[in-house]
């Protein structure tokens, strides 16, 4: 994956959607993905967008190794709920947004019990219930990790702003496109014309 690969989207586009804007807190684990501190005095840490792009490509590749129905996408965060749901619907994955009912991945007696093979979390911290159940069920975890997150119990990190409305819309929109492209069902032009990124933004 290193080197000359073409970005999924121009870096300016990522930046205008604030995908690279982190938080004022920087974890040791995320240091490797952080580019610098914003020069505007806000103290926000900025994520290296090239690594974000590379990791999004890897995540799409990784998800493509699983049956769509075996993928579970979760978002407790409000701004992630609409894009996570649209992503799941586009690729045929399952989604749980909002409250995650304890036991969903661990208690076969529950009506809501499911057995996915891989989980994608919007924020390892906010989605900690889903994360800990996934870990106990031995399934690999992909997480969107902001500068304040750590990499505990994450098997593949996508370094990015996991709090912004536009950032999350862009990430899920791109991922859906890439997963469908890898299956041979989509091309950039068609996706661009049929899926307006703004429609992927949470509205509240």
């Amino acid at each position: 994956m290193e080197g000359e690969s073409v970005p999924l989207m121009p870096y300016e586009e990522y930046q205008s959607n604030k995908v690279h804007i982190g938080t004022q807190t920087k974890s040791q684990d995320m240091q490797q993905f952080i580019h610098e501190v914003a020069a505007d005095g806000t103290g926000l840490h900025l994520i290296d967008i090239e690594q974000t792009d590379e990791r999004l490509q890897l995540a799409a590749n990784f998800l493509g190794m699983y049956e769509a129905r075996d993928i579970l996408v979760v978002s407790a965060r409000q701004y992630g709920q609409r894009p996570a749901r649209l992503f799941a619907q586009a690729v045929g994955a399952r989604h749980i947004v909002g409250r995650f009912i304890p036991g969903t991945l661990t208690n076969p007696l529950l009506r809501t019990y499911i057995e996915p093979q891989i989980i994608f979390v919007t924020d390892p911290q906010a989605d900690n219930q889903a994360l800990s159940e996934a870990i106990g069920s031995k399934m690999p975890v992909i997480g969107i990790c902001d500068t304040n997150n750590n990499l505990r119990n994450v098997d593949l990190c996508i370094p990015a702003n996991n709090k912004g409305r536009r950032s999350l819309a862009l990430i899920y929109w791109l991922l859906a496109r890439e997963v469908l492209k890898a299956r041979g069902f989509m091309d950039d032009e068609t996706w661009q014309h049929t899926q307006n990124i703004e429609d992927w933004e949470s509205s509240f």
Partner: protein
Amino acid sequence: MSKKAEVCTASGLPLTERMSTAFPCPSCGEGIGRSARCRNQGVPYICPGCGFKGP
């Protein structure tokens, strides 16, 4: 895709614990294993197939 890892790629521990995992390398598909401890502490792994460094 290569066959599933049976030991942790970073520590060499067998993947028998409840919170361990095995998955194909996100980049090349080679089997990667992670022990419960390595996952819990975010210990990096390096893919033996392509050199990808995760998580």
